[in-house]
């Protein structure tokens, strides 16, 4: 089962690499859009998690923290 999962992940990796090589070569701005959108989502999500962490670290210090 684990071998099958590994093979599946390897297949996804190969397809992603082929996609990156082909689109990166033929359509660099499309490729930039894919990478950029993923980056925007991750940074935006990280910002929210950072807010959670900032507030979690201050539990008990104030019941009405400034946001």
């Amino acid at each position, binding site marked *: 089962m684990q071998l099958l999962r590994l093979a599946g992940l390897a297949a996804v990796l190969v397809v992603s690499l082929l996609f990156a090589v082909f689109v990166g070569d*033929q*359509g*660099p*701005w*499309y490729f*930039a*859009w894919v990478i*950029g*959108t993923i*980056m*925007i*989502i991750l*940074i*935006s*999500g*990280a*910002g*929210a*998690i*950072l*807010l*959670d962490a*900032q*507030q*979690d670290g*201050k*539990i*008990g*210090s*104030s*019941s*009405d*923290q*400034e*946001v």
Partner: protein
Amino acid sequence: MDMINPTVVDLSRFQFALTALYHFMFVPLTLGLTFMLAAMETVYVVTGRKIYKDMVLFWGKLFGINFALGVATGITMEFEFGTNWSMYSRFFGDMFGTPLAIEGLMAFFMESTFVGLMFFGWDRLSKQAHLAVTYLVALGSNLSALWILIANAGMNVPHGAHFDPDTMRLQFDSFVKLIFSPDAQAKFVHTSVAGYVSAALLVMGVSAFYLLRGQHRQFAARSFRMAALFGIISTVAVITLGDVLGREDYMEQPTKIAAIEGLWHTSKPPYEPWILAALPDDAKQENHFEIGVPFVLTPLITHDFNTPIRGMHELEDAAAPRIESGIAAVSALRRYQETHQQADLDAFKAHEADLGFGFLATRHAPNQDVTAIPADALQSVVEQTKPDILPNVFVTFWSFRIMVFLALYFFALFAISAYLSLKNKLERNKLILKACMWSIPLPILATEFGWITAEAGRQPWTVFNTLPTFLSASTHSTSYMVFSLAGFALLYSIFIAAELYLMFKFARLGPEAHDAPHSDDAYAAHCAVVGTPHASGH
């Protein structure tokens, strides 16, 4: 052949501009909100904190309102190509119809199918499956935009096509060339990311409204933080990608770039100033006053300091031989249509590249027939046609500047907002919160002006250097056009009023309007039950 009625052409243009601008009020929000929802849901799946699910539900409701009205306004436009632009559809249908069909069959259906699952699948799908659905909605909506913009890029630079003198249509050589054309790529990424900016400012503005009122503070703080970061990166990207698109226009559409920059004479590098403000006079072909920043224009457009940029007067002069050659192409094509002789085909092939300029001369030819121009009147027709190659400079110049100035404002607003949010100092800065709230409509305005720049700048062509706009319209009566225009204006105004009413209503109600509780207190109670720390520290 029916004579061209300029009033009908103008009304057709006005009607299409009106419907496209109405439709484009909804599109950017859809493009951006879907990815914002995906980002929020990703955090929900990763952290398990319910507040992020509440965010997806609330902002998803605003997305749903926008999506429904966007679809309603978009469908009519596809029919408009057939009803009002039948000559264009016939001439350019192969190139234009294929991406539109793919958009309808693949992207739009994908988006619409998964929208249903996104809204009603919360209790039927696992967290991960629902997240995948949300990403598919986001991908589907942006792929819809991709195919529309590929079609539009074909109008700007018809890559991968040739004119067939037997069918009298532009026909495909390579679909791949069209999809991967630099113009299609630049247009798509610029437009898509402009949608991200619009969505980010909507989320940030409504969140600012709650923070100003002291309502839903934890909900608003997280929404604001995510939107500010989403928006600042998107704004940097949209400015950078705008430069890419500008460079494409410089390479392929010199008249558009000259009009955007109000450049009547070829520039003198490296001093040539970038004009911040001017009053371009289309009739006199000059600017009445100019305020500019020296040494900026050449590197901005050409990415070096030495290359001159051709001005509109020089572009007009350069068009004269092409107009003459185009008239010869139309004459040879007419003969070939009648005789089907190789000699006539060869004569046409010799001038084929300038065919569009021959069409452009139609308006100034006797009885609108360029084959009937007497030899002694040829130069006069060429001289009369020369100014026609230019777009409306005033409109193109100012719509571009409004878009750019707004983009720079967004950059400043997002940067300050992201900084204050990261430092947890938002609520102290009421001025910034108010600015965010009142700026909600501005990105929509910026995208509208961006669209006007692109479309007005392409004039006088529907297919650049190939098919003039005045030859593209259907031959309706003026009364038909006035009646349908009034109908569209009324119907679409009702759509806009409905959108504004519903958006305001649900934004004012806030996230507590959902079935699930998610006030700050309820969130604290939830955290206590599930064992996750409560963000507000209660």
